[in-house]
């Protein structure tokens, strides 16, 4: 803490002293670099942190700069009022550009945002209002009492203050609740939705942040240069901005700043050979994505792992500790139906994955869902948890019709799930994975980020304390800071359950929780699931491990070709002829290592004969 404070002190001092050692031209370059750094921060927040490919950042920059130019020169408003309105205009533009992100992602989004940026450039080069290709000159000098901002030296201080605040705010966002959700969305939007992250809202937030930073940069640019023209906001500059973010490291805000400042300097230094410089950036970007995808910011971490591997130190002390059972909750309230699926059909073009499935799960039950591969088990889970909208039929959860509910709404009303092929957030630590699910605050509390930051920090502390409890309970303390994908499979499965339970669900859906686990791990899993039920959470699990289903579930539903073919206690179910035929084939159940079903194996008279 002390060293961090000292480092900040040194940085502040250096930022304060910097202009004293520089010529007027160099200060100008530094001022430009800071503006690009602001732009890169916005780009990093949208692309690196939130995973939204945004190729319209340069247009946000342009909207900010042009709005100031138009408001001051055409309408005669003061600089600061214009600046405020300009930032607002940029944010509105950002939200507009972000709308397509609700419907499409990745390269689709890249092309649409790039197209919209081109449209903006087309407008400014042709419109009368924007002065066409000549641009707008004569933007007034921003006034500040006692400070002459026409001096680039003094303007530097204005920029440094804005930039520092913007960087701090960005870091604050990234490392607290909102940023964690954004990063979770980047790593796996589906899983993030299932953990209660309101995905559409978060996508818009990403664009809001990108445009906020773009707008600020535009305002500072117009105040510094006092002239705007279309060539500053070209697609070429968009790609240079992209190069800055990639070279610096898109996932680290500090990396984005380093990339922006560094590349602006290099660009200035090579301005006589600009084409060769451009060739250089292109080559460096390609080399970066192939050899150092995390950018310059990722280099220290890569060196550290390399060093650790060289020394071959194995942190063997880390181990999966035993699970501490939950305290048994006296069941309160009626044992009514918690989840009911009524006549649900799911059609995928020609394939009917679910065919009028009806089932009801009572509070406090452990229900098994079994069936051959492709019988529609996971599809059923996807319908229940809101990933698919059923073609026909209704799903009712906790006395409400949830057929059309989104995954995050369901999560917030108390439904949690795990995934068949592990969907942990790969770039988040184990602790952060838990924190994402723990965080039950609704997205609209985001106003706190703008107006009451201490509230965010207080909530963060509470969440961390609870995350520690969960890590402790599930025996994951040693892996709290680990990257989940580096851990053994069994531990990842345990983390998934811990993460789902962190949301304190009323109903937990486990999709093949025992897949890939060894015998001992399966026994642990049985203890965990029992304890989860005893704590008051109803459990439905899909499983192929019949031993586990037999010993754990009170009631089993058997699916085959999308239809429910049997339902009852495990013993009843395995003796149903349809099940034997569909699920076990026509081989003898005893050969499959199952408990021999009484009625099927023993004739009535034999049973009577034995006392």
């Amino acid at each position, binding site marked *: 803490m002390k060293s961090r404070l000292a480092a900040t002190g040194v940085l502040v001092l250096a930022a304060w002293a910097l202009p004293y050692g520089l010529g007027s031209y160099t200060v100008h370059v530094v001022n430009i670099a800071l503006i690009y750094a602001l732009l890169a921060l916005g780009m990093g927040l949208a692309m690196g942190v939130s995973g939204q*490919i945004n190729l319209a950042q340069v247009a946000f920059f342009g909207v900010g700069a042009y709005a100031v130019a138009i408001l001051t020169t055409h309408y005669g408003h003061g600089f600061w009022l214009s600046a405020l309105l300009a930032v607002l205009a940029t944010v509105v533009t950002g939200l507009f550009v972000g*709308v397509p992100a609700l419907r499409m992602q990745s390269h689709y989004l*890249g092309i649409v945002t790039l197209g919209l940026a081109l449209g903006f450039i087309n*407008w400014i080069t042709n419109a009368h209002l924007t002065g066409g290709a000549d641009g707008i000159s004569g933007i007034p000098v921003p006034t500040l009492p006692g400070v002459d901002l026409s001096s680039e030296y003094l303007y530097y201080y204005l920029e440094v203050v804005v930039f520092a605040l913007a960087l701090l705010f960005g870091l604050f966002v990234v490392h607290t609740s909102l940023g964690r959700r954004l990063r979770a969305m980047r790593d796996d939007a*589906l899983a993030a939705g299932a953990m209660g992250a309101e995905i559409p809202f978060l996508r818009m937030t990403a664009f809001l942040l990108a445009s906020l930073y773009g707008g600020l940069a535009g305002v500072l640019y117009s105040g510094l240069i006092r002239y705007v023209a279309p060539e500053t906001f070209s697609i070429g500059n968009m*790609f240079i901005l992209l190069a800055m973010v990639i070279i610096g490291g898109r996932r680290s805000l500090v990396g984005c700043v380093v990339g922006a400042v560094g590349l602006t300097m290099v660009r200035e230094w090579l301005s006589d050979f600009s084409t060769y410089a451009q060739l250089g*950036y292109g080559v460096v970007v*390609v080399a970066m994505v*192939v050899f150092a995808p995390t950018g310059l910011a990722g280099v220290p971490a890569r060196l550290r792992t390399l060093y650790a591997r060289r020394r071959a130190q194995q942190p063997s002390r880390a181990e999966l500790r035993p699970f501490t059972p939950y305290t048994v909750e006296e069941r309160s309230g009626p044992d009514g139906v918690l989840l009911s699926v009524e006549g649900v059909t799911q059609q995928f073009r020609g394939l009917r994955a679910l065919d009028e499935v009806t089932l009801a799960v009572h509070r406090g039950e452990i229900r098994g869902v079994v069936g051959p591969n492709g019988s529609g088990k996971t599809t059923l889970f996807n319908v229940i948890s809101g990933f698919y909208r059923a073609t026909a039929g209704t799903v009712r959860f906790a006395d409400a019709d949830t057929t059309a509910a989104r995954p995050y709404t369901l999560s917030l009303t108390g439904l949690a799930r795990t995934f068949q092929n592990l969907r942990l957030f790969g770039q988040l630590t184990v602790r952060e994975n838990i924190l994402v699910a723990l965080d039950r605050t609704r997205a609209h509390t985001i106003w706190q980020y703008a107006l009451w930051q201490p509230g965010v920090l207080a909530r963060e502390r509470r969440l961390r304390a609870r995350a520690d409890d969960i890590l402790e309970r599930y025996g994951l303390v040693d892996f709290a800071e680990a990257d989940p994908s580096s851990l053994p499979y069994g531990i990842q499965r345990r983390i998934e359950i811990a993460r789902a339970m962190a949301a304190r669900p009323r109903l937990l859906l486990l999709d093949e929780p025992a897949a890939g686990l060894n015998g001992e791990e399966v026994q642990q899993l049985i203890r965990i699931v029992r304890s989860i039920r005893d704590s008051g959470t109803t459990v439905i699990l899909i499983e192929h491990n019949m031993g586990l289903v037999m010993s754990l579930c009170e009631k089993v539903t058997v699916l085959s070709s999308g239809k429910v073919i049997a339902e009852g206690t495990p013993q009843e179910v395995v003796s149903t002829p349809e099940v034997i035929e569909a699920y076990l084939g026509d081989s003898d159940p005893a050969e499959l290592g199952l408990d021999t079903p009484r009625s099927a194996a023993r004739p009535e008279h034999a049973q009577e004969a034995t006392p």
Partner: protein
Amino acid sequence: MQDTLQTLVGGLSLGAVYALVAMGFSLVYRTMGLVNFAHADIAMIGAYTASTFYLTSELPFAVAMVVAIVITGAIGLVIERVLRPLENKDFDLMLIGTIGFGIVLQALAVIIWGTTGRAVPSPLHSAPLDVLGIRVRTYDLLVMAVAALAVVGLAFFLSRTKRGAAMQAVAMDHEAATAVGIDVGRSNALAFAIGAGLAALAGGLVGPMLYVDASLGGALGIKGFAAAMLGGFGSIHGAVVGGIAIGVLDSYAAGHFQGYSVLVTFLVFTAAIMIRPTGIFGERTVSRA
């Protein structure tokens, strides 16, 4: 009516070029899941090389085109080789990698051919035809014919030849394709080379229609991408329909909104793609749990 039809004809020939760009783009996308942002700049290089061999070396137009296709095909092979470590891994990184290549190609074009562009004269000198009062330039007809041939040729290659079938298999499931003994790397390289060749064809053909300079790729490319998206990513006939749709939309926008045609085109495009993100013939989308 007359005006409308005249715009339509203009849109069709430009649309044929966009369709060629979109086709190359879609071919690469369906085979290796790569959105090649350098595709447009490959088309620009194609336009420059074709015009250089046609104007400076005074080769016949068709021969100049073939040379351009071969050269850009080679560039395609280089790009594929460099980005191969990322294939089927990180989608967004590959995308950015191709943007990097685009920057490189643009810089190279400026270094080789300078910043001033060039106008390429049409290789056909016959007077425009007059069909029912609509003027149809013979060159436009040539462009449409070549594009149609390319569509038929590509469809034949994909459905009737062994290599084409292998490429389809890789597109469906690259792991299963490896398991049955298809060399996925070679198949991808071939797809990339063909894609680049189609880009060069588009670039070479557009030379006499537009002004050739280093920024040609930007104009051609984004509309080509938009065409691919509108038709449905990865679908070959979708690319054709999308290309023509964008060409016609573009030519109407130019007629009615003059300077703001790009803005209008992209606003309409964005609205269309919002309504149907998978495009007209798109299928594979929605990620599964």
